[in-house]
């Protein structure tokens, strides 16, 4: 028996040990917002947030998530109010077919939290420095979002959406 805590709702699952978190979310719990792209850890479409960290649900066994707090795209909205990143994706036209979008949005939400925490990425000039959201170059956003592929090629507008949320947060 596995206890999955998804978007603040607790589910008790009795399941085959081979069940991945991705298939548990989609096929058992009916939360189909999380997408199956490559199913081998290469595309990021299945990105979810576990215990505050963005991870790939396709390479995560459901049994290994027992008791952990999981957030999917369905858990971002507050009542009728979109999460600022969802609103920014709409405003910036940051998608075309939309299949990679749930993963992109969850990844972007975490990327911004990581920037606020000041942690470096591969393109940070000096890993000793603390990065600053107000002056973050686009190459930092692209690198931090490189785990989410978009076959429609909406990358330019995805960067713009992340940039907009960063700018709004820095202003407020």
């Amino acid at each position, binding site marked *: 028996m596995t206890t999955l805590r998804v978007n603040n709702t607790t589910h008790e699952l009795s399941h085959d*040990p081979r069940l991945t978190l991705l298939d548990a979310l989609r096929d058992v719990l009916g939360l189909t917002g999380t997408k199956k792209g490559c199913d081998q850890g290469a595309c990021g479409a299945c990105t979810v947030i576990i215990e505050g960290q*963005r991870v790939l649900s396709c390479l995560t066994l459901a049994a*290994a998530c027992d008791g952990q707090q999981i957030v999917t795209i369905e858990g971002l909205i507050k009542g009728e109010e979109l999460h600022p990143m969802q609103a920014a994706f709409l405003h910036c036209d940051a998608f075309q077919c939309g299949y990679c979008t749930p993963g992109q949005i969850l990844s972007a939400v975490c990327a911004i939290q990581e920037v606020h925490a000041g942690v470096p990425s591969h393109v940070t000039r000096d890993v000793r420095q603390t990065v600053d959201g107000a002056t973050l170059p686009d190459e930092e956003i692209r690198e931090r979002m*490189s785990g989410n592929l978009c076959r429609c090629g909406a990358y330019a507008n995805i960067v713009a959406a992340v940039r907009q949320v960063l700018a709004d947060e820095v202003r407020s």
Partner: protein
Amino acid sequence: MKDFTFQRLAAAEDAARAVAGRPGAMFLAGGTTLVDLMKIDVLTPDTVVAVRDLGMSRIDVSDDAIAIGATVTNSQLAWHPVVRDRYPVLSEAILSGATTQIRNMASVAGNILQRTRCPYFRDIHASCNRRQPGSGCDALEGFNRGHAVLGVSEHCIATHPSDMSVALAVLDADVHTVQPDGTTRSIPFGEFHKAPGDTPHVEVALEHGELITHIVISYLPAARRSHYLKVRDRASYEFALASAAVVLDLDGDTIRAARLGLGGIATKPWRATQAEQSLTGRKATDDTFRAAAEIALAGAVARKHNHFKIELTKHTIVRAFATARNANV
């Protein structure tokens, strides 16, 4: 995926015993290697023992060392302020690998135990001595552009894919383990991975059921001037064609001591010790670094498609050392 029994235990020795008692059992940490390879039937454990909750997720810092728990995530380690300050080569190596999602999942112990990305290893219909001893090696005469030129044998030319391990090699890390009977031991990093030789399927120095508990890096003041340079086909999210991890201890413009690790071109995380020795007492010029690079690659053996890696690696070495030399530390 083949069926298996999932087990979660409370103590490291219990987990070690659970795996030791079954030839087909394997440990599961972050799952980025194991679950991936189980899906394509390259790994078919009958028992999977989860090790995430064994209390091995701490980083303990002291004045003379840093002890990294086996299930510390790659992100935790790369982002740790003391690691970034004392061992920039380690943070840089980790951050150059995979993506944030994968680094958030992957454990430190799992990273050094990750399996090769050789496409013939990953294809159960291909011949691979590493996956199936004695079956042959399709890479030798196949598409071997990404394969190794150092540490190769006539039985296997697969590269070790880890970036982190190349940094741990130059930092002389020690791998600490616990055996099923509760005894512990420490394995020097240079002895942990095995070059393929006649037994490509023997990849590391661990016994079946022996569990990594933590990795220790001694304080190395010179590592403040260190760097990891990775060269690859894409700017991000790609394995190395060649990489260099360097530590440079300078006295003015003279090299007191240097360390050089190589990735993407070797069958195990590579330490170029002769090249290191050649640098001692020399001026830290690009010509000096180029001469060391020649020594580092002297024993390289290329196949049909990967000859370019030899020259590429020499340039990578020179630029990595030059960057470390020019850094403000």
